[in-house]
């Protein structure tokens, strides 16, 4: 209880620092950039975060944190703008918003649909942040109780889950995750000092730069995919953006359940805003009255409220395992972790001791970002619709120089540009082969955690029998969860996104 009070007071004490003019400016820049970026159909939240890491490398730490939180929250919401206006989700998290928002747009209620998305995204973001502040002290206490073996299993579960819930067969997701784990082993081993898989190449001694790989896979490869395999859309006119308070009041329970689901799913390692939105949307439809259910697929505000509150609530949720266990709740959170690592901030159970006040500053920043998301969303939603008419052939090649500079600026290392290029070509091959790139990134960021904790556990348990190790309560629970994840993914056989698409066809009820 005292830890929770400490964190609460610490968060309140950090608010003045967040309200410093330069930090507020960083927050506004981040939000504007994030919303505009998210609104553009070919650009994802992860890509935004990946490219911005290079920019933040030289920023002051508080500015970098608040800027990236703005980009994160803004881009998750921004996806709903193109989802409503052109039926193309700006980010995967806005797929359900497109299902309900586009029919509303065709009825001339596009402005109202966007307004409702703005307000519910803001409330969802705030809900997730409050949950983050409340849950973190509790999980922090639990995290201090679990040992290396359990942390290793948790990291492994994160990679497996990331592969299981992607929009590809589980086996392909797992292979992608395992490749990510293998890539993380390249370079000097921090425990023994021995080089692994460097083959005498000096550029590999320090390991593959996570930022360069992230930009390659989510920048370079996404540019190629958007440019070569997707078509442009027409930008339509939108009426005045207005918030339908009566709809929000009417579906208040949906808003709360969507936010709760979003926070919970966000906190599950590797399950990001898209999964949160899918599940909340599906849940809201199941609990709807027959009359409300008939509206689904034809323009339901209830569906938008569920999906938008959930995807933004997942922002706060995804930071819970990241801050406490150094296990990101999504690929965007993984990018945020990469940015914090560049700033010299190591996540994990000891963060409050190693960086006093940092966790509270992150909480306060996210609170302020959540409130400003509503304001900025309302102000720039309509102008951002104009961006939807930018042809991909103009937009995407123009981002390429940012990829090159972003990869270089993270560590001022020329070889990172080559690593970015090679990762990008690998990313294109993965996408063409039907392999999801997200598990690869999760594997890469969780690799050192799994490797070091596994070996630490081997040393700790060297005099114990295998059964003693396997029967440790938390470890046993984690093993059961891992087995259930593997069996469940193999048994269901179909990717989550495919199941949702089958259950909720865009042309209404079957």
């Amino acid at each position, binding site marked *: 209880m005292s830890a929770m009070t400490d964190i609460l007071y610490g968060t309140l004490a950090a608010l003045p620092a967040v309200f410093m003019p330069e930090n507020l400016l960083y927050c506004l820049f981040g939000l504007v950039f994030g919303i505009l970026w998210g609104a553009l159909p070919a650009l994802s939240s992860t890509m935004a975060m990946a490219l911005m890491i290079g920019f933040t490398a*030289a*920023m002051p730490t508080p500015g970098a944190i608040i800027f990236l939180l703005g980009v994160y929250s803004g881009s998750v919401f921004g996806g709903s703008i193109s989802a409503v206006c052109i039926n193309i989700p700006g980010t995967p998290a806005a797929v359900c918003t497109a299902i309900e928002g586009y029919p509303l747009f065709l009825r001339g209620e596009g402005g109202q649909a966007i307004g409702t998305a703005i307000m519910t995204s803001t409330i969802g973001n705030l809900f997730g942040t409050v949950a983050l502040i409340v849950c973190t002290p509790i999980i922090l206490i639990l995290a201090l109780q679990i040992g290396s073996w359990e942390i290793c299993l948790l990291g492994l579960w994160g990679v497996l889950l990331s592969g299981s819930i992607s929009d590809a067969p589980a*086996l392909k997701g797992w292979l992608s995750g395992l490749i990510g784990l293998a890539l993380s082993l390249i370079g000097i081993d921090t425990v023994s000092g021995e080089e692994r898989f460097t083959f005498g190449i000096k550029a590999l001694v320090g390991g593959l730069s996570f930022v360069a790989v992230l930009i390659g896979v989510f920048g370079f490869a996404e540019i190629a995919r958007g440019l070569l395999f997707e078509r442009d859309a027409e930008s339509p006119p939108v009426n005045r953006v207005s918030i339908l308070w009566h709809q929000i009041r009417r579906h208040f329970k949906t808003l709360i359940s969507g936010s709760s689901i979003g926070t919970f799913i966000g906190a599950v390692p590797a399950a990001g805003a898209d999964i949160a939105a899918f599940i909340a949307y599906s849940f809201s439809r199941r609990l709807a009255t027959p009359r409300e259910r008939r509206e689904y697929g034809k323009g339901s505000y209830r569906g938008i409220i569920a999906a938008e509150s959930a995807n933004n609530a997942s922002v706060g949720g995804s930071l819970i395992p990241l801050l406490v266990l150094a296990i990101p709740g999504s690929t965007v959170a993984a990018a945020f972790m990469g940015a914090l690592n560049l700033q010299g901030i190591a996540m994990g159970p000891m963060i409050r001791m190693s960086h006093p006040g940092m966790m509270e500053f992150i909480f306060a920043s996210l609170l302020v970002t959540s409130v400003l998301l509503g304001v900025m969303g309302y102000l720039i939603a309509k102008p951002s619709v104009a961006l939807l008419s930018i*042809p991909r052939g103009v937009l995407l090649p123009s981002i390429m120089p940012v990829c090159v500079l972003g990869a270089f600026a993270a560590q001022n290392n020329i070889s990172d540009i080559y690593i970015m290029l090679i990762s990008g070509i690998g990313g294109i091959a993965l996408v063409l082969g039907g392999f999801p790139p997200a598990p690869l990134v999760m594997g890469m960021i969780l690799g050192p955690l799994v490797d070091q904790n596994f070996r630490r556990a081997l*040393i700790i348990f060297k005099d114990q029998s295998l059964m003693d190790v396997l029967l440790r309560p938390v470890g046993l629970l984690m093993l059961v969860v891992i087995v259930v994840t593997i069996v469940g993914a193999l048994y269901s056989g179909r990717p989550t996104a495919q199941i949702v698409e089958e259950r909720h066809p865009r042309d209404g009820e079957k």
Partner: protein
Amino acid sequence: MAFIIEIVALVVALGMGAMAATRLAEPVATSPWIVPLILSSAIVLVSIALLIVEVRDWLKRRAERPGADAVLPPPRSTPARVAGWLALSGGYGVATPLIGFEWATAIFLPVALRTFSRASWPLTIGLTAGMGILLPLAFRYVFQSLVP
């Protein structure tokens, strides 16, 4: 493409496993090669499983529709565009450290914009100037960062 990736993953994992096995020394618990060995075994298993699934699906498709395995050629322009983009963007990345970011961007962006979107010359010049001059200036003086 999936088949190629799975074969490459299998071969690389076998090599990785062999390398880890030969370097694994006592005590195993502290050896940095224990995790690569386990990981390579997992990759081998998953790759083989995926290859079995690929072959099974291929045989099933072939049995259901004779001639279905004859893959239709992709649209004529696509392979050329893919190869062109990869060559152009790859060349840009390689050239940047050699001739500098500004010059590399000044060559890459007009070619890319004119080839992939037929953007007008004023837009092409404006964007090239923006990305080739303003972006590095912002990096140098606002973000206090180096530019290659």
